[in-house]
């Protein structure tokens, strides 16, 4: 059986997105729907062409070929976690936790430093960077930063 390649999957997702977007324009007045619907129809046609092309000329490589998937997954989850933490604990504490934990994780391949040295360096940089920019933006530039539900 032929393996389904990522281009086919992408094209199917795009066809679904275009279909939903067209459906969402129902009930709008002509001046509100004319532009999005025109774009969605073009997107639908291009996506169908993309789908057909993916069958006619299938790619042999996979989507994340040659990429350290584990690192990318950890980085992505860390960013999602960071957003959740900000909403709960506020910007400063969430940033210290995010910067500290992610820097620590990314340093695991570095065998030049001892674990103790790494902890000291990571802690200083996480607290230093977070506090410096927090103070700079909140008190010098007067730019507001997000506060959390549990802590401000």
């Amino acid at each position, binding site marked *: 059986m032929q393996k389904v390649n*990522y281009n086919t999957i992408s094209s199917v997702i795009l066809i679904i997105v275009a279909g939903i977007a067209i459906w969402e324009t129902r009930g*709008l007045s002509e*001046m509100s729907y004319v532009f*999005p619907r025109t774009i969605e129809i073009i997107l639908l046609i291009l996506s169908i062409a993309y789908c057909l092309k993916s069958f006619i000329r299938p790619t042999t490589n996979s989507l994340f070929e040659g990429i350290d998937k584990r690192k*990318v997954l950890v980085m992505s989850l860390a960013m999602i976690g960071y957003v959740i933490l900000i909403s709960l604990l506020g910007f400063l504490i969430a940033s210290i936790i995010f*910067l500290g934990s992610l820097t620590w994780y*990314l340093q695991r391949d570095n065998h030049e430093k001892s674990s103790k040295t790494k902890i000291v360096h990571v802690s200083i940089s996480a607290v230093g960077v977070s506090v410096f920019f927090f103070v700079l933006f909140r008190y010098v530039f007067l*730019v507001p930063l*997000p506060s959390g539900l549990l802590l401000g």
Partner: protein
Amino acid sequence: MLEFLPEVLSSLTQPLNMLLLCAGVLVGIIVGALPGLTATMALALLLPFTFTMESDTSLITMGGLYIGGIYGGCISAILINTPGTPSAIATTFDGYPMTKKGQASKALAAAAISSGIGGIIGGLALLFLTPILADWALNFGPPEYFWVAILGLTMIATLSSGSMLKGLIGGCIGLLLGTVGISPVGGESRYTFGFSQLQSGLELIVILIAFFCIPEVISMIENKVKSQKSVKKEKGIVKTLFFYIIKKPFFLIRSSVIGIITGIIPGAGGNVASLLSYDAAVRFSKDKKSFGKGNVDGVVAAETSNNAEVGGSLVPLLSLGIPGAPPAAIILGALMMQGITPGPDLMSQQPGLVYTFLIAFVAANVVMIIFGLMGSGYIGKVLSIQVSYLAPSIVFLTIIGSYAIRNNFLDVALLIGFGLLAYVMKNAGFNPAPIVLGLILGPIAERGLAQSMLLGEASGNVFALFFSRPISVVLIVLCVLSILLPLLSNLFGAKNEDSQEKLGA
């Protein structure tokens, strides 16, 4: 222009503006020198610093950052064979071989001088072409704006790297994202899914940071920093190189013109400019074989062109409101944050501000030459910053930038959501540039389409309004050509390859 000179001079001679101009160039060079941190990222990351500034100060700082960022890319290209920004790709061809021959200091000095000269020529083009194009654009009505937007999209879809089909799909996705919020003509809410924060649409800067920064940061954790060669200083090299370079006016003008034209065309960025200019330098050289082995002309051609492209990319931004390159898109976002809408009216409404920016742009290039000649060896030291510290700090700064625009937490969530989507799409071959340009051009195109339809209905012939006005016809022809020419060249290219294979067999 001379009538605005007092206003320009009073703004430029303010100590804060001069200081921030220099700081912008310096920070831009440092960020641009770091592999993985592009000039676009430098502008996006440092955007929140400009929120509380006056509009002229903000623009001067951003201009300095853009110029410094593009130049900075050459430092890592020369020292570690890794372009700091994509536009420095052609600099590696001869820059790194020069470093291997022990001529790193010569290569860095040549890059600084030629970048500065290219940048100044690009700046002068910006100074003189912007008013001309803006004057011409004052004749545009809604149908012309619609076709300009479509032309921008077809060009970026076909010129940006990768498949044309994916480029066009990306452009459509961007246009679709641009329709989120209240319809500009109909006044109804679209694709807000119950979030009242989305009524005013997706925030341009958030989407720019999501598509240009987050995928780069994720990719960055894969990079391993290469060891850096030491830079030995050579006495008298700057003077010798300066006279060597300025004695080649035709070479400099050719490289700059390539850069300026590439900059004006949306979608073709500094990387295309430097490659085209390098290719022209090789073609017209009497000593073709020395290129790629450490010929200083290779560095000069690439660097003159990619810095001239900076000025070129700002011409359509200031005159039409359409950015010529991704960093110019961030400057568009910064202008809109300041309540300034770029376009033909900007020249007539705020000429003092525009000329201040244009003159500061030329001055920033002079500052860049000085910094480049004095400190590129020292700036090269920042290349040893570990990615484990850099990547999380960049994410941290993007969060500040996205939240600070309108104090909306949904923007932070959208930044990460769209950022992760952009990373997956980039790996699937969807370049971020057409998507972002689609988002910028969407409202222009929609307003053009809806207003033209209303005008057409009133005059009784919608079709004639779209397809018979002279400027519209020219734009339509350009749209068709921009799609057909790459298709035809692919077709003939494939045929030539087939015939060559057959001959070979």
